[in-house]
């Protein structure tokens, strides 16, 4: 069973009566364990697609089947539960809570989960260790570099052991070196079995994935497996 399946997915924004069609009917599936990059120039509709797939927005027509169930039937509470338990988000702007320690930031999704409180500390520390920031537990976001902030965000996305991780331009606000470090972590997570959906407009970033879906003007232009896959760790060793 596919983790994500969209059939003829359409999205039209209704801005005070002005209809703006963005997605014109998309069809694809994502299987568990895949690493998919969605590419496209700005305005192509890739961010809209991520918002729909990430339960942050609703689609207008067609079907979105997540984990075998059509999304249209979910209640608000179920949507919140799915976001919390099944999805992990990594944003371009990091979106960490200011004046709040790394540990507390990573714990945030646990607060909204049914994970017993006694497990929070262990889980959060484990996730922080996975991104190599154990020495920064008590730091606040303002004391971290951009790359470190994004790694905290990755730890936060991991902490509830989601079925799929959505990364929206995760390297967009980073210099190339920190960007590579972040992509290395994401790639490693995929190798460990996490499903990842990456949104980017850079080919170089997209090539870390196993598969690239190119979108243009709200339609799929191409959907291919990556042949010359970039490997972040290899890159370092060069």
């Amino acid at each position, binding site marked *: 069973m596919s983790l994500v399946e969209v059939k003829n997915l359409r999205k039209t924004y209704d801005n005070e009566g002005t209809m703006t069609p963005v997605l014109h009917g998309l069809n694809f599936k994502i299987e568990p364990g895949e690493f998919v990059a969605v590419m496209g120039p700005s305005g192509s509709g890739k961010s809209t697609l991520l*918002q729909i797939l*990430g339960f*942050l*927005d609703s689609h207008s027509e067609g079907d979105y089947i997540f984990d075998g169930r059509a999304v249209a039937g979910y209640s*608000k*509470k179920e949507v*919140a*539960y799915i*976001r*919390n*338990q099944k999805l992990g*988000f990594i*944003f371009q702007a990091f*979106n960490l*809570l*200011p*004046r*709040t320690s790394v540990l*507390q930031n990573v714990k*945030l*999704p646990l*607060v*909204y*989960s049914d994970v017993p*409180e006694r497990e929070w500390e262990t889980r959060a520390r484990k996730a922080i260790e996975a991104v190599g920031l154990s020495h920064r537990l008590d730091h606040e976001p303002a004391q971290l570099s951009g790359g470190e902030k994004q790694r905290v965000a990755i730890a*936060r996305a991991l902490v*509830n052991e989601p079925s799929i991780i959505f990364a929206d331009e995760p390297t967009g606000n980073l210099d190339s070196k920190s960007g590579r470090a972040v992509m290395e972590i994401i790639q490693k997570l995929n190798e460990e079995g996490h499903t990842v959906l990456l949104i980017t407009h850079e080919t170089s970033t997209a090539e870390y994935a196993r598969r690239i879906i190119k979108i243009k003007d709200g339609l799929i232009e191409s959907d291919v497996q990556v042949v010359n896959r970039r490997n972040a760790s290899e890159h370092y060793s060069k």
Partner: protein
Amino acid sequence: MLIKHRIKTAYRGLVTNKSRSLLTILGIVIGITAIIIVMSIGQGAQDLILGQIEGLGATTISIDPGKQPQGPSNFAEVYTDSLKPKDIEALRRPANVQGLKDISPMVIQPASILFENETERATVVGSTEVFMDILALSPEQGSFFTDDDVKQKARVVILGTKVKENLFGLSDAVGKTIRIKEQSFRIIGVFPPSGASIFSVDEMVVAPYTTVQQYLTGTIHFNSIMVRAENEKVVNRVVHDIEATLRESHGITDPTNDDFHVSTPEDAAAIVGTITTVLTALLGSVAGISLVVGGIGIMNIMLVSVTERTREIGLRKALGATEEDILYQFLFESVMLTGLGGVIGIILGAGISYAAAVVLSSTVAEGWTFAFPISAAVLGLGVSAVIGLAFGIYPAKRAAAKSPMEALRYE
């Protein structure tokens, strides 16, 4: 999400914005402080006055001319001349009133007091030894007049401390002669200062009532009659007997036509209680307005806070917060803010009232004690929590309704 974590989340939100939180609650702090001070001082004043009334003893009954005042217009009736010497004689008869221990009339006459070149306006009070005994008054210099002085209409007076000071300064007054209405009176005593007592004689001159009637008023009626019952148990019967006797003596059949009224310290206490309660409620409601203003301030800041934290709200929703989670986070924030404001206000109000009690008791109102009504604390806390709820619900709803996508996009 457990309520415990909702509270913790709200708490962290407040701590992260300490200075804003403290500024926000200022209005509530001031409002609650004002209410606590008004209630505490109101209670202190009530305790003081009631204490003095109770000091009269539960067996003291006073008879005043005119019917029981029901409003300002009735107060003129205290000038009626319905209480006469024959009433005293009638009341003294055991056949009429059983269980009566003492009875003493009182006459009041404002007058100018002259000593050499000094003049002083004062109230001349004519009474008896019994009357002064009831009020627990005794001269600090010289002595009081006797029953013989009353019978013989002796021209002797005792001065209140202010009258004495204004006429004689520091020099001795006892034995000197003053003039009132062209008549000479010999000073036989001076009262000690009575402070803030409601029975203050500081600005009075006390003489035998017969003397005052003979030389100053030229009338035979009384301004008041004070009666003491033998013990507390018979007070009600004595009151009843007095009313019956006076009605018969005045030829009154319908009690609504009474030209006198009889009251006990209990009645006086009830009136004082009513007055202070009304005053406290009045002042308290003025202070309450500042609470409403404070509440609007809280709402204002919470709305700003919701807009400012749009990103945070979006993030929390993206990470799995339900609308309810967000609603409670912001609602708890505002209730905790006002609750904290309430607690600070209660402590501040109690502190200021305590300081006021210390100052008052050592200056103008000897015997003033610090009173802190528990009801004030409960009211203060309750009101501030309700304000937090009432003015926090709208901003909290606005926060909960934000879409995670819009919220994350917000820069």
